[in-house]
Structures are given as C-alpha cells and as structure tokens.
C-alpha cells in the first residue's frame, strides 16, 4: 500500500535531490557515460561565488527582491483584504471571488495577460500614459532591465495576493468570535483587537503563508520564461539551473551547484514548516 507511492516519490524526487548535491561537486557535460564525470571539489561553487559567472549574483538578488516584495507588499495586502472581507458586508463573496480569480491562472497565462498591459506600442499602459515610440518617450516596461523585474512583480503579486487572502480567510473563520467580543468589551479598538488578539491566534496560518511565500518566490520561473526566457534583467536562480541543462553547452555539475543553492535557501523554511505542522504529532 505504501510501497509503490513511496518508491515513486523517493525515486523521482529525493534521489535526484541527492544527485544534485553529488553532481554539484563534479564536472560533466552530459556527453558520454557516467564514467566521464570528473570530481572537481568546490570548483563550481568557487566559480559561482567568485563572480566568474556573471548572471549568478543578479539572479540571486532578483530572487531576494522577489521574496521581499512578496513578503513585505503582496502578503500584507492579501492579509488586509482578508481582514476587511471577513465580516458581514454585502457582496463579500463577490469581492472574494474577484480577488481570488487570478490564482487559478497559470503563471504563464498571467505573463501573457500582462504583456498586453506592458507592450511597448500596443500595450495599455503606454497608450494611456502617452509614452509610445511615436511620442519619443517610450517606456519599455518588459525590455528595460532597470524596471522589468518590478513590472513582472506587479503581475506576480496580482496572483499572490489572492492566494494569501484565501489562506487568511480560512484562518480567520476558525477564530472564536467570542474572543473579539471579549476584546471589545475590554475596550480594545479594531486595530488593537487584530494585532493583540487575532494575529497571535493565526500563528499556524502565518507559518503556512510564510512558507508558501518563500517557496513561491524561489520557484518563480514560468512568468519570466514566457516574457523573455529570463534574460536581460529577469534572471532568476531557477532560470540559470534550467539554462545550464537546456542550452547548447550542457553543464551538469555547474547547473547542479545552482540547484543546491536553491535547496539550501529553501531547506530552512521547509524544516520550520514541518516542525510546526507535523512536529506536534510526534509529541
């Protein structure tokens, strides 16, 4: 009963994870058998951190910016909307549905839809702002490496806000209403009630949202890949890993080293999540 699923999962997920770690200490161009794999120690990491591979630091920075925007802007907006909608107001369901809708769209489709906003001459934004080629003040939202990451983050946040809102709405629903009453009897205003009473009770949801936010930021790939294959200002660690296996020069060991860095960044939140959600079962 457990054997086959466990085998599939371990064989296709954990074995390759282990493989990434081992291969990251080697050099192999993927041609020829496994016998051609050469152990090179920490060379791949030295190349990465030594700045010899130019896209690495920008990609790392972009991932961190992505995470920061999700954590500091998109997530609080989602939480605010959940708090506003978690009460009896007319049309609450409709508001929820609309804000939630982008979550069902693939990030690839999200990329497409937002390209219609950002396109240089045919896009909505430039036409409204009067910044098309003919006016001489073209804003190339997705082509200019100084701004394209931010433009993409607006689109990605469009989706993330709804996701966070739904998670918080579920959490808020499980809050005992008498707690609010007790707080208001004690003379707490809405803000105090939220930050002193409700927010602490939401701790389990906060953990889920935090982990979802971190993991989504690290996984981000589709949207930049569909816009410009993750080049020219939109480099992400996920794109670099992919490019090192899909490109003409397949660099297995080097790509693995970048994958291991992704693994190292994500392992902290994953362990934190497991400890908080499954840890109590162990006790």
């Amino acid at each position, binding site marked *: *009963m*457990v054997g086959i*699923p*466990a085998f*599939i*999962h371990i064989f*296709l*997920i954990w*074995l*390759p994870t282990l*493989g*990434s770690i081992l291969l990251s200490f080697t050099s192999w161009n993927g041609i020829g058998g496994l016998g051609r794999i050469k152990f090179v120690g920490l060379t791949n990491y030295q190349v990465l951190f030594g700045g010899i591979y130019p896209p690495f630091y920008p990609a790392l920075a972009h991932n961190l910016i992505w995470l920061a925007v999700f954590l500091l802007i998109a997530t609080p907006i989602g939480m605010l*909307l959940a708090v*506003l909608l978690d009460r009896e107001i007319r*049309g609450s369901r*409709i*508001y929820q549905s*609309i*804000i*939630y*809708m982008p979550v*069902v*769209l*693939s*990030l*690839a*489709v999200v990329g*497409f*839809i937002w390209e*219609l906003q950002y396109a240089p001459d*045919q*896009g*909505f934004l430039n*036409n*409204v702002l009067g910044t098309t080629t003919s006016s001489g003040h073209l804003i190339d939202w997705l082509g200019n490496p100084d701004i394209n990451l931010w433009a993409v983050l607006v689109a990605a946040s469009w989706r993330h806000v709804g996701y966070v809102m*739904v*998670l918080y709405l*579920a*959490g808020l629903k*499980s809050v005992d209403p008498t707690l609010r009453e007790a707080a208001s009897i004690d003379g707490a205003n809405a803000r105090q009630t939220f930050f002193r009473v409700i927010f602490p009770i939401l701790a389990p949801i906060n953990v*889920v949202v935090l*982990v979802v936010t971190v993991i989504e930021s690290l996984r981000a*790939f*589709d949207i930049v890949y*569909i816009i410009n294959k993750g080049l020219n200002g939109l480099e992400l*660690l996920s794109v670099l*890993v*992919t490019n090192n*296996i899909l490109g003409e020069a397949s660099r*297995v060991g080097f*790509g*693995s080293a970048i*994958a291991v860095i*992704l*693994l190292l960044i*994500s392992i902290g*939140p994953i362990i934190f*999540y*497991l400890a908080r959600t499954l840890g109590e*079962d162990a006790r």
Partner: protein
Amino acid sequence: MIATATASRAGVGARPARRRPRRALLHAFLIAVCAVWLFPLGWAIYTALRPYGETARLGYVSIGGTYTIDNFVNAWNQAELPHFFLNTIIIVVPAVILVLFFASMVAFAVSRYSFKFSLALLMLFTAGNLLPQQVVIVPLFRLYLALPLPQPLSDNGVFYDQFIGIIAIHVAFQLGFCTFVLSNFMKTIPRELNEAAVVDGASVWDTYLRVILPLTRPALAALATLEFTWIYNDFFWAILLMRTGSKLPITSALNNLSGQFFTDNNLLSAGAILVALPTLIVFVILQKQFIGGLTLGSTKG
C-alpha cells in the same frame, strides 16, 4: 440566547449613523480593488474581441469599430488548440487519478496504523512537495534520458519526451501535498469505525476501499479540483521533459503561440483566454471545492 439577540440588535440600531460612512468607504475601497483586479483579464478579452485592423486604425485604447469572435475562431484553428488540449487531457486525467489513489493509500496507512516510520514518511512526502522543482531537474533530466521504458509506452525507449514521463513526475511531486491533506482529513474519522470493520472480518484493503475511502469523498473532490488546476497549469515540467513540440500540453504550448502570432496581439489574447478558459470555468463552478482543497492543506483537521 434571546437576550443576546436583542442586545446585539439594539447595538446595531444605535450605531448606523456613525457606521454608514465607514461602510461606504469600505465598499468604495473594495470596489476599486476589484476593478483593478479584473482589469487585466477584462482588457485581454476586450482586445481579443476586436479585429487587428480595427485596433491598428483606431488605436488599442479606443472604443468603437467592429467586435467579433473571429480571433477566437482563428486562434482555435490556426494554433491547433484542440490538439494541444487533447495532450493536456492525456496528461491530467491519469495524473490526477493516480495521485489521489496513491495518496489516499499512504494517508490511510499513515493515519490508521501507527508504524514507527509513518511520521517520517509523512515528513518526507511533505518536504518533497515543497522543494523548488529546479532542485531536482538536473539529475532528473539525465535520469529520464537513461531510464528505459518499453515500446508501447514510449516511442523512443526512454522516459524523456513521453507523456508517461510527465505524468510520473506530476504524481511524484503532488503525492506529498495530497497525502498531507488526506491524512489530516482521515485522522478526523473515528478510529472505532476501523476497529468495527476489523471485528467484522474486513481485510485492510476492504477497510480502505469500503469504509474509509467513501468517507473521504469531500476531501478527494476538493483535491481533484485543485490538482486538475495545478497540473493543467504546469508549464515547467513539459518545457523541460518534452522535446517534440506537438506533444506539449496546452499551457506549455502557449510559448509557441507567441512565436506564431508575433505581431497580432489581438489573436494572441484570444489564444491566451482560450487556454485560461478551462481553469476559469472550474473556478466559477467548483470554487468551493478549490478553496476547500487549499484550506484543508493549511488548517489542520
């Protein structure tokens, strides 16, 4: 009960004068947010309804001219969307069924019988689901190129560039989330049911199939909705593990669409909307299931 009801009614009656402007402000804010939220999709639909010639003549941000569904028809035919939709079905349907079948078995075992390693197994599965896909992709790509798969299942003898390969990786990845959700759900089913079945002489397999699985139906329905959407929306695995363009599922095929319709944004938006349509329909019809699935994973029990 009655006392509190009257008290709260009195409370409501005393306040509206002060509350009404605040409520109006809240509604104004929410309506503004929703307008902003709907705009990108609405704009895509609006653009798709106009012929390219009209927008070229009047400008993209304009009203008037003709509105037709020609772009949808053309995108459907020229980009061979039915063909790619079929590819998606070939991948999504078996993947969702298999992942729910496997996950429910593991969840059953983990939640009913306390093996020493059941918690460890659950942790392994959950952690595996949270890994960024790129962590496994380099060795997985090599594995797929080398792993043999016999003839009728594969036309090149390996997992790479095959529907089965894509299904397998979806199953492997989604097992974690589904097992986690289902085991939480099954823990809420009283253990006595299990014991009663055993006393009646039911085997483990019977207990799973006849007793527990029917009771798990709500969770299975929610997960099926969620998994359908997620696997349908997948872009990454197919881009990496498929080479033959005509075998791509619809979401990954979007990439080619942009090359094909390079200059015609109207046609492109029609294509994108058609690709988004199945998930939007699922969203409208099964929103409850969808949200139920997500929140089952985030709140315990």
